[in-house]
């Protein structure tokens, strides 16, 4: 396996008025292609901050981030946006679907930035919805879907452009046990069957068990976790 993400000694300091809040204090990390990484740690430890840096929606105060051979920490805003459209699929805790668009239209959204024809876009969006097992809900609006279904639509939206990395910030944080279970199973399938590299932030040790690897973030520093390759144990 080759390295997809290289994080090299990054620091992130937030400036609020006169105060400087150091959040990440020199973190280095490598993510292999095809990995499923869980990021854990107490609230406020900087998990979201680190995930945002990998996803290219935020930039480090210092240090290098290389994804798929590109040093994204050097990109400007415009280049980053273009890069994200191609390489990153986002999954959020609150699903964040567009309420005025149907499931199909929500999934189609990232494809509007591509050169695909309307027919191709619709086909791809349908395929993505089939993968998350919502082929029969294409015309539904977010408010007509359950939380679990909404999150699956969001996952379909994240995979529809076939990105290099899926980033998920507490994807099960707002779901009940059963729906959380289904969502995690779906992520595992995407990782195993479709070989998607996934970086997931979670508070839930059970969720972390689904990942191949777990990292702990504490006081701005990383530690290798005790969970890993434990899917079978939980399932059994």
């Amino acid at each position, binding site marked *: 396996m080759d390295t997809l993400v290289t994080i090299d000694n990054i620091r992130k300091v937030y400036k609020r008025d006169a105060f400087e809040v150091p959040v990440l204090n020199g973190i280095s990390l490598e993510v292999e292609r095809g990995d499923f990484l869980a990021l854990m740690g107490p609230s406020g430890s900087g998990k979201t901050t680190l995930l*945002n840096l990998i*996803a290219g*929606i*935020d930039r480090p105060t210092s240090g290098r981030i290389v994804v798929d051979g590109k040093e994204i920490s050097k990109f400007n*805003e*415009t280049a980053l*946006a*273009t890069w*994200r*459209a*191609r390489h*990153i699929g*986002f999954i*959020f805790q*609150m699903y*964040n679907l*567009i*309420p*005025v*668009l149907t499931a199909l*239209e929500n999934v189609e*959204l*990232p494809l*509007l*930035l591509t050169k695909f024809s*309307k027919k191709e876009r619709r086909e791809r969006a349908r395929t993505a919805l089939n993968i998350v097992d919502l082929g029969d809900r294409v015309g539904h609006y977010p408010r007509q879907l359950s939380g679990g279904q909404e999150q699956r639509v969001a996952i379909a*939206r994240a995979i529809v452009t076939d990105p290099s990395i899926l980033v998920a910030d507490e994807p099960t944080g707002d779901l009940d046990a059963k729906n959380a279970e289904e969502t995690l199973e779906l992520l595992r399938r995407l990782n195993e069957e479709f070989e998607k590299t996934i970086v997931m932030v979670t508070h839930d040790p059970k969720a972390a068990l689904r990942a191949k690897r777990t990292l702990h973030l504490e006081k701005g520093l990383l530690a290798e976790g005790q969970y890993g390759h434990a899917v079978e144990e939980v399932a059994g």
Partner: protein
Amino acid sequence: MKFANLIFRNIFRNKLRAFMTLLLLAAIFFLVATLLAINAAFERNDTGGTGDRLVTQSAFSLANMLPFAYEEKIRRVPGVVDTAKTQWIGGYYKDTRNNVALMAIDPNKVESVFPDYKIPPAELAAFEADRTGAIVSQELAKRWGWKIGDRITIKRQIFPFDPQLTVRAIHHHPVQKSAIWLQMPYFQESIGNFGRSDMIWLKVAKTDDMPRISQEIDALFKNSNDPTETYTEKEFTRQFVSMMGNVKVLFMSVSISSIAMIVLLAAITMSMSARERVTEVAVLKAIGFQPRLILTLMLTEFASLTLLGGLIGIGGAVLFYQSVDAGAATQGLLENFRIDPQTTTICVVLAALVGIIAGGLPSIRASRLTVVDGLRRVV
């Protein structure tokens, strides 16, 4: 455009709010289109006149009449081809709502000074031969079913008499569609041979001479008891309009303040709408939508909303004035009133501008929002 669906859905995201905004916009633009079109109508000053006529009246006011003797003096000014003294009488047919523009004229002057009324020669001859004859417009004739030979009574407005007339001729003036002519002698006799009239029209040989002729005429009577003021037909109409107060300025300021008000209200609505969508905008940006695209989408949305509201109001006004006789409602002042193409264009552009101005700030703010701030909703 592949984003049309997204824009359309966002416009009607909150149905009630969209509906109220559209209603308000439609109402305001109905009003503004009306006011601007009235101004345009005044501006055009389209009397349908011949362009070679001047009119002399009292320098004091229209209510101050000029002695008949003035006509002959004016006639002798070099360059004047012919003259016709006339008197505005006014009045209504049957009901006060049915105003007519009743005027008195010496019958032998109709053809030479007012050829634009286009009267068949035989009918004109019949009018000249009948002391109580009348020339009515084809529009009035059609409206009231008048035929040659019919007896009609016009009710008084200013003068203490109700003219009893016989329709002798029908005129086909392109603009003066509620005009009725009667004979000056009949009018004079009815009010006790006053020997004065409020206007003296004159036809000139060369239009280039008009400034000199009006100066010469006014100089003639400068030191008399009845000084005059001589205008071109266009100036006369304009002066008539300003006599009713400075309507134009009033209409303009009402229009501008209406637009300013709608910009403010739209700005509030649009900021609200943009604020509700902070997270969504952040998500779109995370997905890869560039700030410029976000700006374009939002501005297009806001401009489409106000444009749609404006189109409803302007279209409504166009149809409304097509089906309503504004001439009758305004006592002939707004004869043939229509929302003209130029006003329509101006209003449509204004409607789109309202959206761009009102939605500008919220759109720029949304486009500048960073993904991280938007997702955390710190704004």
